[in-house]
């Protein structure tokens, strides 16, 4: 009998018609940031890129928290004709923890359905209706999407307790009680969507939250990626001067969109009365097996998926899986749960990144190991700030800290004296790359054990609150895929920022 490897090489299996199987290993994987792990780079639709959790700073919404989970990295706005629909065969989740055990107490589950309308256009003298090949056959506006050929809808379930076996309730539209929501189509361009902002705004929903007398808000759709980073040079052995100006380098994501799942929840709902600290993270899961269909058609899709939901992406604090967890364990991290994070603790207590910076630039890494300061930031919470959501790598927000008005927000968060910012939760305008660089080199440690701890380390790509909106959904209208910019000219920014 042939071995497993020989079996996998059988002609039928090797060719598309054969069974292309994606058996997702049960014992490994989760993802954070953009394409940060080998496994998740193969399935970008379920690649979590950023997670935000903050007290709403929109005027009049101070009694709410906003949660943002971004997916599908590095979306070129012109990436048609299929653009960036979320995966119909995936389960996207946002988890909240408020009982101090790093295990989810509330989970929001997002499931998506694509409907191809198969719009037709008359062809030839007799006007034979011919189905179109593109996304739309004419302009699409707020209140009239009849020209749109593909519609993506979704449901949101609230699960109390274990994410798989807990009690499940539907989140419903406060306006009509429906449990089916629409995700606006991606910003194809200004001819298809003459006023994309107005078109997308109609899909901001007031929603009934089971167990809450106060409604929340919901939006799922494409946004301009709010993350700012000097990506290329950072990964090229930090090929820039980390002590240079804070705004001298381009943002590698300046021309990239992302897909956002955004919820606004009453504070009391998020904390469930269990104390002011709420923890959060996002995950995405796929069915454990996937078989390629050698004969796909209009009703039988290109793949068939089955098996248990298997987690392939996990994200809370930025850059953890990207820069802290070793390459060999990144897939394992993505498949893991916060309650089991003791297995990764060594990467936090004895981080490699400060040592690399020291070797490259001569800036001394902290001598105080194990790094209890980083353990507090990532794993336990910082005493007096946001402890109280259990032990595990999750985002922690102390909701008793009042939100800082947008004009007064400090882009360095707590390091800049703004206790409403990262790592007390994370706002879209927090420059977590610069914060993380400084924290890694000992900004939270005494100078005698962290000689570089007070240096203004930076990747050179600047971010502050002016890069995002002052109200829900905070992340800005995505960049249009058309018209094309003139050669050598950067794509038109979606607005604001530098």
């Amino acid at each position, binding site marked *: 009998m042939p071995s497993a490897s020989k*079996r996998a090489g059988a002609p039928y299996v090797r060719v598309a018609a054969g069974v292309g199987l994606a058996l997702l290993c049960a014992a490994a994987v989760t993802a954070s940031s953009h394409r940060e792990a080998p496994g998740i780079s193969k399935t970008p639709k379920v690649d979590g890129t950023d997670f935000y959790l903050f007290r709403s700073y929109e005027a009049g919404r101070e009694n709410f928290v906003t949660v943002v989970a971004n997916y599908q990295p590095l979306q070129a706005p012109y990436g048609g004709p299929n653009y960036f629909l979320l995966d119909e065969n995936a389960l996207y989740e946002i988890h909240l923890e408020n009982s101090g055990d790093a295990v989810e107490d509330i989970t929001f589950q997002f499931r998506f359905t694509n409907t191809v309308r198969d719009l037709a256009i008359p062809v030839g003298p007799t006007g034979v209706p011919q189905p179109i090949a593109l996304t739309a056959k004419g302009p699409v506006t707020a209140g009239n999407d009849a020209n749109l050929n593909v519609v993506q809808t979704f449901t949101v379930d609230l699960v109390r307790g274990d994410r798989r076996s807990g009690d499940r309730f539907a989140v419903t539209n406060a306006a009509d009680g429906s449990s089916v929501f629409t995700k606006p189509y991606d910003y194809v361009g200004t001819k298809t969507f003459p006023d994309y902002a107005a078109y997308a705004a109609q899909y901001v929903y007031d929603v009934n939250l089971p167990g809450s007398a106060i409604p929340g808000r919901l939006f799922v759709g494409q946004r301009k990626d709010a993350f700012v980073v000097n990506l290329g040079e950072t990964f090229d052995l930090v090929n820039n001067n980390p002590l240079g100006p804070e705004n001298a380098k381009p943002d590698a994501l300046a021309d990239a969109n992302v897909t956002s799942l955004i919820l606004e929840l009453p504070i009391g709902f998020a904390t469930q009365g269990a104390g002011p600290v709420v923890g959060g993270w996002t995950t995405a899961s796929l069915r454990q097996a996937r078989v390629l269909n050698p*004969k796909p058609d209009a009703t039988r899709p290109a793949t068939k998926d089955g098996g248990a939901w298997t987690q392939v992406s996990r994200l809370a604090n930025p850059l953890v899986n990207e820069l802290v967890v070793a390459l060999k364990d990144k897939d394992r991290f993505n498949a893991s749960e916060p309650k089991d994070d003791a297995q990764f603790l060594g990467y936090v207590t004895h981080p490699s990144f400060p040592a690399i910076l020291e070797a490259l630039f001569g800036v001394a890494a902290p001598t105080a190991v194990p790094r209890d300061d980083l353990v507090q930031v990532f794993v336990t919470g910082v005493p007096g700030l946001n402890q109280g959501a259990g032990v595990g790598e999750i985002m922690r927000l102390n909701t008793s800290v009042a939100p800082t008005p947008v004009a007064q927000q400090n882009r360095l968060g707590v390091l800049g004296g703004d206790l409403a910012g990262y790592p007390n939760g994370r706002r879209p305008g927090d420059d977590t790359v610069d914060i993380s660089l400084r924290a890694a080199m000992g900004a939270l440690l005494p100078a005698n054990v962290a000689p570089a701890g007070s240096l203004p380390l930076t990747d050179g790509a600047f971010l502050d609150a002016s890069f995002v909106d002052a109200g829900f959904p905070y992340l800005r209208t995505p960049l249009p895929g058309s018209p094309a910019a003139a050669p050598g000219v950067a794509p038109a920014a979606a607005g604001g920022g530098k």
Partner: protein
Amino acid sequence: MTRRVRRVGLAALLVATAGLGTGCGDDGAEPVNFNAFVKAQLLTQSETAEPVDVNALVFQAAPGDDDPAAFDDVLGVDSGG
């Protein structure tokens, strides 16, 4: 779900389970029929099931597994069409 698919799924599950139950090698690896295992997976659409740990499994082929139509039943396509 058609009756035929249901029968195939049950058979697949039985075959896969039989493999799990009979064949631990010296290194602890457990031989499992690949196609049967996959078919059993595809027929599972549970919201509550936990993933199967595949690290200890060694997938093996059975006669007929190389048939290009081996998965047509679970894919819902017409054999030979």
